[in-house]
């Protein structure tokens, strides 16, 4: 690669407002040649840049099986770059570098039961792998999706949640934090780990993919362990500040691990080995 830091130019093709502070952007490659060549795996991330404001790291939220020539990302308004991403309109251009990092071990998951546990905007990377799996549904046994958010309004990908709910071969469990429910709410009420323990999915022959805020991951993993899931079957993706995505800028270090190169996808077994600094 000769121009390491030069992003691909992307056209904003569609902007979907998910919640008050989350938007999903559909980005098409400006260069058709790149669009043709570009491939990625579920779980990989990229550097999205708004020119003049800087770069930020997000995962690619679309599934490789369903996005040819474009990618999608879901952004929650937080800092400088995410705020600017929210300002973009259809037709604007932005930059994208990637894909970087490792991916969810899809092949290892073949022939197992699957459990997806996500919280808040953490559904974005999980959505990528969910669609990837659903598009090869016959390779897996039972598929369960547990998704929680702060309130009903904070649930992202509402359309797709509905779609998953209608599928016969997918069990969808939705939950909102206490106080976030509306009178019409039919799902569970309670934090994700609590709901998880209440639902108590079977641990045998099951692979778990989890993502969410750090505090949620921490307690979810504890609950999963309590339910009898093996450490190596719990797969999560970590969030660290990254600038280069190439294993050089040094800020995503956890011990000798570079999250951008060795991660962001790790099993709980691996994470237990890291120094506790994330």
């Amino acid at each position, binding site marked *: 690669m000769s121009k390491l830091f*030069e992003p691909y130019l992307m056209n904003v093709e569609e902007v979907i407002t998910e919640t008050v502070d989350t938007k999903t952007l559909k980005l098409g490659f400006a260069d058709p040649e790149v669009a043709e060549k570009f491939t990625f795996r579920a779980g990989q991330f990229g550097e999205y840049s708004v020119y003049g404001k800087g770069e930020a790291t997000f995962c690619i939220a679309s599934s490789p099986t369903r996005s040819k020539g474009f990618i999608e990302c879901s952004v929650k308004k937080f800092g400088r770059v995410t705020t600017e991403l929210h300002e973009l309109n259809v037709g604007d251009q932005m930059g994208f570098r990637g894909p970087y990092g490792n991916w969810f071990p899809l092949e290892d998951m073949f022939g197992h039961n699957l459990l997806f546990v996500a919280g808040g905007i953490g559904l974005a990377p999980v959505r990528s792998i969910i669609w990837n799996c659903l598009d090869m549904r016959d390779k897996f046994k039972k598929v369960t999706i547990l998704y929680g958010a702060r309130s009903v309004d904070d649930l992202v990908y509402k359309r797709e949640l509905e779609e998953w709910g209608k599928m016969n071969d997918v069990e969808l469990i939705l939950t909102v934090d206490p106080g976030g429910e509306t009178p019409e709410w039919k799902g569970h009420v309670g934090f994700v780990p609590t709901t998880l323990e209440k639902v108590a999915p079977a641990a045998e022959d099951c692979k778990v993919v989890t993502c969410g805020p750090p505090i949620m991951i921490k307690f979810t993993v504890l609950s999963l362990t309590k339910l009898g899931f093996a450490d190596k079957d719990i797969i999560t993706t970590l969030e660290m500040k990254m600038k280069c995505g190439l294993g*050089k800028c040094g800020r995503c270090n956890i011990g000798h691990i570079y999250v951008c190169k060795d991660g962001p996808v790790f099993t709980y077994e691996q994470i237990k080995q890291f120094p506790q600094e994330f």
Partner: protein
Amino acid sequence: MDKITKDNLDKLAAQLAEKQPVFAPQEDSSGVVAYDWYSGKKKLVWGVKTRRSAKEAYFPQSETLLKYRIRDGKVEQENKEFTSALVLMGIHPCDARSFTMLDKLFGWDYDDERWQERRKNSVIISIACPGPISEGCFCMNFRGNPFGTENVDVLLAKDGDAYHVKVASEKGEKFIKDNSKFFSEDGDEGRFGQLQQKAETSFVNSPRIDDPDIWKRMQQNFDHPIWRELSLKCIECGICTWLCCTCHCFDIQDEGGFGGKRERIWDGCSFKEFTKMPSHQPRPAYFQRYRQRIMHKYGYFVERFGMIACVACGRCIDHCPTNIDITQILNKLNQVLPAEGEKAVCNE
């Protein structure tokens, strides 16, 4: 073997600078000797310990990566060109040695073309140290050498008003042939070896690392309470990072509005903002940031790339505002950390 006088060395720098950028130690108006691009305006000073390290030649503190322009939401971008044929003169052997470590980092998996191209196309002319050139020097403790030739193309050793020349690579041989009018025949062949021996023996009193293999025990003692105590003195400035030969962390920032550029800028793990995300700060405490610096150099880097990321130039010791001495830190760790394989009990 050849010889070059001091006057000729100055003239050589001036002549080379007509054709290509020359990176050489110069004295600025406040009397600080530091490497800079030769412009003829500042006085060249050879053999004095430079304030900053030579990594700047390949990895400047801020460097434009690309320029862009936005019109009606459409972006035009252009990769910034750079010159790669450089001459680095008067580099300390420790500075030259640091390139080995940075080569590993900038070349693993993804090649950083800015670093790699410059590395490949530049000539390094080094000046050997006659001994410790500041109180902080301790290169002999970390497998360095005041006459080291790692990454060096031509090594000069000062003897009175002239320098004995040792050619250390093919590139260096070609360089001397191209600029042969500045060099003369050296009569005294054995002198170079004598000078080297003298320099090596003069390092006896420099700060000592008790156990250079300390890194083996550091990783397992990540939670040791000693870190809190060691970091109390740190005021979290960027001096050690900015002056260090091997610190390489950087930040990428955009500057400008509708037309502007993307800059790569040094960053340091001692700053709070280094890892701070809007939602989450993985290293909120002083001691965690301080530990990251020490661990990265002497622990993580070794595990990843097989060598300690420190060339023992001693700049951080000389210029730390509160006199945090890295050799003392390592020795203190050596004393308190339990033996290999055992883990400290964390009482906090």
